[in-house]
């Protein structure tokens, strides 16, 4: 009986070996003739495939006061601060980035500018909607703007307001000699349709 079982097993295994040989042969031939094309398809698909590391810990943003530089910058698209302007009842989240999706949620931080505490130009922007900066025109020189971040609180005092064209980027200069907060929104505030002007508020660090 045991011998019979062994014989059946032997016959089965030998057939399986032949089958596996055929499979290997087919894969080898396909790889030989179409390997490059298949590799290109894989890399093309992987280009639109994003790997998200769910276990990745988000490092806390802090500031090095000696170097005037942030340690662990916030991730693009995340909220890192809140902005408070009592004069026009504004209390909004500030996000790192300036995409339409971000501006829908609150105030955007231009990714090319410095962060509060770094001693340079900070550029914020927001829509001129009721929820955001519709009342921007009511602001006056001397009004305070408070920015609260996870690494410190910063208060700025408005010293100037300007109306600029959307193309006049030189009116929003990036420098690292003095901490200046520049916030802009579309102008006219209650215009319907696309606007080509921007209302900019300039504020300097108070304390």
């Amino acid at each position, binding site marked *: 009986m045991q011998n*019979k079982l062994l*014989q*059946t*097993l032997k*016959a*089965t295994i030998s*057939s*399986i070996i*032949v*089958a*596996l040989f*055929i*499979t290997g*042969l*087919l*894969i080898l031939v396909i790889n030989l003739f179409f390997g490059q094309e298949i590799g290109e398809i*894989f890399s093309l*698909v*992987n280009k*639109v*495939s*994003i*790997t*998200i590391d769910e276990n990745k810990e988000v490092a806390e943003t802090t500031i090095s006061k000696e170097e005037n530089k942030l340690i662990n910058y916030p991730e693009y698209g995340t909220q890192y601060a809140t902005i408070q302007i009592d004069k026009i009842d504004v209390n909004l989240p500030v996000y790192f980035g300036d995409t*339409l*999706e971000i*501006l*829908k949620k609150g105030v955007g931080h231009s990714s090319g500018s410095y962060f509060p505490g770094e001693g340079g130009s900070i550029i914020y922007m927001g*829509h*001129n*909607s*009721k929820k*955001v900066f519709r009342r921007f025109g009511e602001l006056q020189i001397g009004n305070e703007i408070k920015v609260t971040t996870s690494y410190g609180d910063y208060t700025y005092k408005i010293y100037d307001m300007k109306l600029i064209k959307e193309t006049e980027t030189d009116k929003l200069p990036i420098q690292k000699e003095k901490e200046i907060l520049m916030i802009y929104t*579309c102008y*006219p*505030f*209650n*215009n*319907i*349709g*696309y*606007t080509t002007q921007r209302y900019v508020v300039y504020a300097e660090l108070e304390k």
Partner: protein
Amino acid sequence: MKVLTNIIRFILMVIITITIITFSIIAIVSSTILDKNYIISKLEETNFYEETYKLVESNFENYIYQSGLDETVLENICSQEKVKEDINIILSNIYDGTNQKIDTTVIAENLNNNIDKLGIKTSKNASAIDKFVDHICEEYKDTLIHTSYEDNLNTAYNKIVKIGNQVTTMTIITFIIALVLIIIISIKCAEKSVRNIGISLFSAGTFNIIVNKIILSKINVDGIKIFNDTFSKSLVTIIQEVLSEVLKSGIIIMSLGLVFIIIYAIIQLFKKDKKKLQTEEK
């Protein structure tokens, strides 16, 4: 002569294996990606219509903040049913070759009515408001699905179906010829045909399983992002299901092959016993 027969038998087994693989892949693709009803069922399963409706509304909001208009003008200008109807129109254009256009008249009418209710339209801003309405209608079309690809997709679909039909016919003919030949070659020992078919089935099944594993190891299917999250979610579900069908078919075909192989081994055993008995009797 025996060597030549074995070589021919091996070649026929390889041919049968290829036809089984081709047939299984065509069957899977035809019943999934190329089947409009399957796609509709997957879109429903992944809440594609609902999510697209939310996306449409969210994209409208992007414009409202830039326009300076009050958010209330967007209220009820579009419905989930309208989104579903229009997505199905696009699917019909792709799969059935219909040439229907997305009609945004209702959206424009509803939007204009809401703007009129606010009483803000003047001769000065009328053109800006009209432009805004046009923008919203265009945004709606763009969000649904990238409509400019419809014609190309329909052409590709028709081509694939045509090639698929030709390949299926060729595969069936090749399979039958190879099967008949393998039976003829093994006419003296019929159970060998069972073994050869078993080997081909086992080999084809193993191939499908290995292909599934290779694809999954080379591509991060879960992370595929195309156009937007809503579309990607449905696409990932469909790809995962197609791959799972490939694996499932592989396991079934391989098991079937194993059954054939075992049947052959048992027949061989009985045959040997019979032969032994006959020799002893003599």
